[in-house]
């Protein structure tokens, strides 16, 4: 298992601990409901190569790993991925400076959703005082 897969496992584990009846952000909740069933792939590369993890948003609004074919793919370097999570790098700055690559239909719109998803992930990491 690669570093990236282990990191994403860690995030999924944290997610299962904090998903509750009260959402962190109404906007995120609404968009999540609209995107139930969406499958997207995160491709993260480092010096050793590329790791790919495909994720799906389930009906109970949890993100789980899947083997289904992704509709969208987001690609970034491991440093960008970790800096986005730690809050050292703003998603918008990474987006406009070419540190992120998106593929799929209407990918600019989906980039906005990814931005919100990273906000949510940072909230989780803050809640557990990791960052």
């Amino acid at each position, binding site marked *: 298992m690669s*570093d990236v*897969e*282990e*990191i*994403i*496992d*860690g*995030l*999924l*584990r*944290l997610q299962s601990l904090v998903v509750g009846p009260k959402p962190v952000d109404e906007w995120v909740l609404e968009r999540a409901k609209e995107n139930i069933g969406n499958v997207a792939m995160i491709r993260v590369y480092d010096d050793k190569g590329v790791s790919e993890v495909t994720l799906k948003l389930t009906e109970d609004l949890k993100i789980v790993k899947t083997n289904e074919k992704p509709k969208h793919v987001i690609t970034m370097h491991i*440093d960008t991925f*970790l*800096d986005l*999570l*730690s809050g*050292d*790098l703003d998603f918008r*700055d990474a987006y406009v*400076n*070419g540190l992120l690559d998106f593929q799929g239909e209407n990918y600019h719109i989906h980039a906005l959703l990814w931005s919100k998803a990273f906000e949510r992930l940072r909230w989780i*990491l803050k809640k557990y005082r*990791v*960052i």
Partner: protein
Amino acid sequence: MKTVTVVAGKGGVGKTTISVAIARALAERFKVGLFDVDITGSNAHKLVKVKKSYDVVKEGDDIAIRPAVAEVDGREIEFMSIALVSEGYVGWRPGEHGEFVRQLFERTQWNVDYLIVDSPPGSHDEIIEALKHTDVAVLVTLPSELSHLDARRTVELLAAMEVPVAGQIINFSYAVCPKCGARIELFKGKKGLEGIPVIQEIPFMDGLPEIDTERLIRAIDNPIKLKTKRSKIKRNLLKLFLKGVGRFAK
């Protein structure tokens, strides 16, 4: 060869004039090239006298560009600009600008000690491409809040791309008395420029009318590294923590 890129963020602050002045100052002692990468607004060719045009030569299966030869105040420099190809408007898609600059950086055979790059305003692909090939940047601003706003964006870009900065030239912030040569500060206050925001973390450099060659070389040889918010230690700690949680989940 050391590549020095003149940046500003805002247009009309005097990047081209400063670029030519820096090239002129360095040409006093060194072999110097001037590369205008402002694709849609190139005008450095108007401030130098082009004596011999560029050439495209075949090298084995590949091609290379020999830069033009120009003169500035009697000092010979090498020179390259899209204006040598056409002085008309450029109607390329933006991505092509960066590609043009990339190919010219890779194919032009500069035979110089210093290459001065005159960049366009903003943070478009041609300036990103130029910064990838840059050793040191020189920031040019005006004593104005709007210029400061764009300069701040450029400083963030330089920090993100880890390009060190020799200094900043605040153009039009002083005048030189034509009779006695004394320098008259137009906005001097107790803490720099009165009522005008300045980029505090970058040292000031002398600008026009004439750049002192010795001070310029010292600044280029001792640039400051801009601090970024991104921390390798924080990144590694986060990685360790999340990997640990991931393993715990098994």
